[in-house]
């Protein structure tokens, strides 16, 4: 007979906020900046 016990994790599904300005624009700005830095 096995006596095994393990806690199981909470289930927390997610929805992201502000993907566009926070992340996409930020990435675009970063890419443009590094392109400028490299002389393109």
């Amino acid at each position, binding site marked *: *007979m*096995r*006596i*095994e*016990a*393990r*806690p*199981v*994790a*909470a*289930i*927390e*599904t*997610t*929805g*992201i*906020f*502000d*993907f*566009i*300005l*926070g*992340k*996409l*624009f*930020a*990435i*675009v*700005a*970063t890419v*443009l*900046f*590094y392109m*400028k830095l490299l002389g393109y």
Partner: protein
Amino acid sequence: MTGKTRVELFPLHVKQDANQFIVGRPATGSYVALSDGALAATELLSGGRTVQDTKAALARGRPVPALRLRPLIETLLATGLVKSVDGVPLPEPLPPRRYHLSVLKQRHVAWLFSRFAAVGYAVLVSLAIGIVLGEPGYLPRAADARVVPGPIMNLAIVWAVSTMAMVAHELAHLIAATYLGVRASFGLSNRLFFAVAQTDLTDLWLVDRRRRYIAYAAGMANDILLASAAVVALWLHDQGLLPLPYPLYGTLRLAVLVLLLGVLWQFNFYLRTDVYYLIANFTGCRNLSQDAAAYLKRIFSRLAGRRAPSPLAGVPEQERRFVRAFAVIMLVGTGGVIAVGAAFLVGLLHLLLNGDGPLLGSAGSPALQGRPASLFPVIASLGLTCCWVAYGVAAKRRKRPRVSYRLRAPEDL
């Protein structure tokens, strides 16, 4: 604690899951996975037997050498499932949960999951796919993020659309959970530096594993349905069948972009997104992320010359393979996203310090004195994200166990 100790447990819910049992307490959202022997021991203990009597009852008629209940009792204590020991009530280690929208009942939402509704969803998504295939111009573009020229008004529109999309996404999870017969709650949190809303669906452990997919996928299904509806509305407008004033037309294009990027973001599954839960459910790993994190921590400890016990000691071999693979993905994914975030911050800092001029096209009016106006939305977004993430971290700390128990026993239990 001795062999004569009686351990009183809270009323527990039990659900068979593969070859184990999920036992838990929805009031605090604490659940444990028990083997058949551990479940039998738990039932005997909750029936009022002493530890000694429980061991004797389990061993009756069978040779059970070195039967130990200590690890089980420690787990029950740590997860807040023990109400009292020898009649002495124990302080609650976990705060009580609050559910949201409890007025919503299964009968209110069942129609959304009917075959009739499923046919409607399939027709809507097929229409949108057909429109996009026929005219790729309906695919979202980065330019759709700009609805109006003024950066502040545009930021307000983007945040309004993002908020509505996020609320609809979380509501879809809650509605699906209600359909499956469990309750849920909303909260704000973070995944690394991403600001997220989350729905606590922990009570899904009491639902059949196959049916849990419905609740996990509901958010993304909702996003795809709303994006499809928006594409169809845009197409109807362009055919002259649905009059839409420009701001609304542009806002719908923005909504398609926000919703579909939100779905794409879910594939960062190393951050415990919805896709992560689909994968974890498919593989049957109940602690995939936590085990992978513990596994990585142990590797780093060993690299630093410290000895650490194996965190996968009680994990079945098949599950261990998934945990190891997930640990690699977690390490690479997290490293990658941190690198992108760091590159962004360095770039933004340079722009701010040097006042290089607007990089993201012309801006309406200067929003910040002496700063590129078009950077204002990015900075405002960054500020909001920082506050949100700080709140998320504080909220996680509040949810940590308030009490930790250390079991002391003169004999081996």
